[in-house]
């Protein structure tokens, strides 16, 4: 029983930390020490959860001992456990960056508290086994993200937060509406029982319609093709650690929800729903590529790379064969780590040069070789060059596309990798090579070690993730097993009735 309570700890622990941090509002030193300590414990907890799930199979916890369909179920399968571990690691790295990167005026106004609440929402969304509970954790996450987005109150933040909130209020209302429709048809909110009942009625047309309305809801969070319009503006506004947190975690929660609903609940009429998802994913990739190639702004380039990655992952989901699903999971975790790392690196570049315009940068490699080579490794990892982490995921997705005979998807993903490489190499070439840009003050070498350390940490993790594919794969294949056989999930949650 204690072991089962463990899987709730990734939610409880940051929640507790966030609450305690509220009492130290103005004492930034105490806040930093406490939240760093909490993050380290959080990583240990998450690693323990992964270890337990790896050895014991999927773990569930009935909150308040109310049996499965009636109470709220916390369910940790391998996918959820791995994503929780990734989240806490990224959270810890970005927290380290925040210590020097976020500035006093934000730290004095509960920045670290809200940071923890965001982690509560994200971890909760990964672990829950109940659709309405997922909605609540979405709101926890979104509310924290609204505050983090606007904290500091500059003009651009106020402007973009207004748009971001309005879009998310709309998508939350759509979420509630979709839940209401689904409840009226199957009469339950527990994901396992939902899946079981939809299997019994064999997904009639109305359920496919609801599946698409969930796709709209989660697509708005995850920024898939026609619904990504809010993302470039909203992610441009906040300071770098907040963008890194958003870019690494928020859209991925939407992707995870698509993952969960389209593999556990709505998987019976795949020709309709999954073909639709596949087409949207490819359009997402194309839209992202256009954005990533078009801009001269380092932040914008990485932001559009988020959109591309979301498209690649959801394309893998839409194929529904074991290679593609394994590839999607592999790529999802890789992308969370590498996007956080890239935003932090871009943040260091902006700190040095004082601008995000690529045309005003240049020659950074002479004074900052570590930054340059870390960025280089991150860039080629993002594009998927073999020894690094982006390779295995994309390879598996491509294999999945071949075995599903979807050659259009194959071509789009391969070409998109090339354009991704072009977009980030452009940052490398214009930012790091060439002559140092002419600045008004003397080009004094700034000390950026403290900002660079967390980025190097993340890139090192991705290197191990890429090189140690064999080790990682045994975890991921366990996740794939649960994903492709919903009966494992259903039987574990409902107690094998």
């Amino acid at each position, binding site marked *: 029983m204690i072991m089962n309570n463990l899987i709730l700890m990734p939610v409880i622990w940051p929640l507790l930390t966030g609450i305690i941090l509220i009492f130290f509002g103005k004492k930034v030193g105490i806040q930093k020490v406490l939240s760093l300590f909490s993050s380290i414990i959080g990583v240990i907890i998450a690693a323990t959860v992964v270890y337990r799930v790896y050895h014991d199979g999927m773990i569930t916890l009935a909150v308040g001992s109310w049996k499965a369909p009636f109470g709220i179920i916390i369910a940790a399968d391998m996918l959820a456990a791995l994503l929780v571990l990734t989240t806490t690691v990224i959270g810890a790295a970005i927290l380290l960056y925040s210590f020097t990167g976020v500035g006093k005026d934000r730290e004095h106004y509960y920045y670290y508290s809200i940071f923890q609440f965001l982690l509560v929402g994200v971890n909760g969304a990964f672990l829950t086994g109940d659709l309405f509970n997922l909605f609540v954790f979405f*709101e926890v996450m979104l509310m924290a993200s609204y505050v983090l987005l606007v904290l500091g109150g500059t003009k651009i933040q106020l402007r973009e937060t207004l748009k971001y909130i*309005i879009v998310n209020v709309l998508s939350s209302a759509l979420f509630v509406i979709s839940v209401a429709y689904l*409840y009226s048809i199957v009469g339950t909110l527990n994901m396992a029982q939902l899946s079981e009942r939809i299997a019994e009625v064999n997904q009639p047309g109305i359920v496919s319609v609801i599946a698409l309305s969930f796709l709209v809801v989660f697509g708005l969070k995850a920024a898939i093709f026609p619904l990504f319009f809010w993302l470039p503006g909203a992610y441009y506004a906040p300071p770098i650690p907040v963008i890194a947190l958003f870019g690494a975690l928020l859209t991925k929660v939407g992707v995870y929800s698509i993952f969960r609903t389209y593999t556990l609940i709505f998987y019976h009429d795949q020709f309709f729903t999954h073909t639709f998802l596949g087409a949207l994913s490819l359009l997402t990739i194309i839209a992202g590529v256009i954005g990533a190639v078009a801009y001269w702004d380092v932040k914008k380039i990485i932001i559009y790379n988020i959109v591309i990655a979301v498209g690649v992952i959801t394309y893998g989901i839409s194929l529904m064969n074991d290679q593609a699903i394994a590839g999607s999971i592999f790529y999802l975790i890789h992308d969370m780590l590498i996007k956080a790392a890239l935003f932090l690196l871009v943040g260091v570049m902006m700190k040095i040069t004082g601008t995000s315009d690529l045309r005003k940068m240049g020659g950074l490699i002479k004074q900052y070789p570590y930054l340059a080579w870390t960025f280089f490794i991150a860039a080629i990892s993002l594009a998927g060059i073999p020894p690094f982490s982006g390779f295995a995921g994309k390879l598996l997705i491509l294999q999945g596309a071949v075995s599903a005979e979807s050659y259009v998807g194959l071509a789009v993903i391969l070409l998109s990798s090339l354009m991704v490489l072009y977009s980030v190499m452009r940052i490398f070439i214009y930012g790091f090579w060439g002559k140092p840009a002419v600045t008004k003050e003397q080009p004094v070498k700034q000390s950026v070690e403290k900002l660079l350390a967390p980025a190097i940490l993340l890139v090192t993790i991705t290197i191990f993730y890429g090189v140690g594919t064999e080790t990682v794969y045994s975890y991921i294949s366990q996740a794939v097993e649960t994903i492709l056989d919903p009966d494992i999930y259903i039987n574990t949650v409902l107690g094998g009735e």
Partner: protein
Amino acid sequence: MEVLMAIVIGILFMCATYLMLSKSILRIIVGTGLLSHGAHLLILTMGGLKQGAVPILSDAAGVYVDPLPQALILTAIVISFGVTAFLLVLAYRAYQELGTDNMERLKGTDNHE
């Protein structure tokens, strides 16, 4: 009864969509209010509007109305209340700082800051 509710909820969604597409921030916020009203009424309707006692356990009643949608609505109401309060304060701050309530003028393409 459900048909009538469905029509009313449809009208609420229609008004909400119309208001959210307008230029003034306050009209958009009124739109989000109507949207959440519609969503909450929809949960109630979709849970079924059959006759029954209030969901408080007593000896007299044989049939109760479904208590689950009511709990869901209660949760959704406080969440949308919190978000709306935040949105209103944000709109107030944005009006103070940016000096406009016209969404058309909040584009910010001229300066990247």
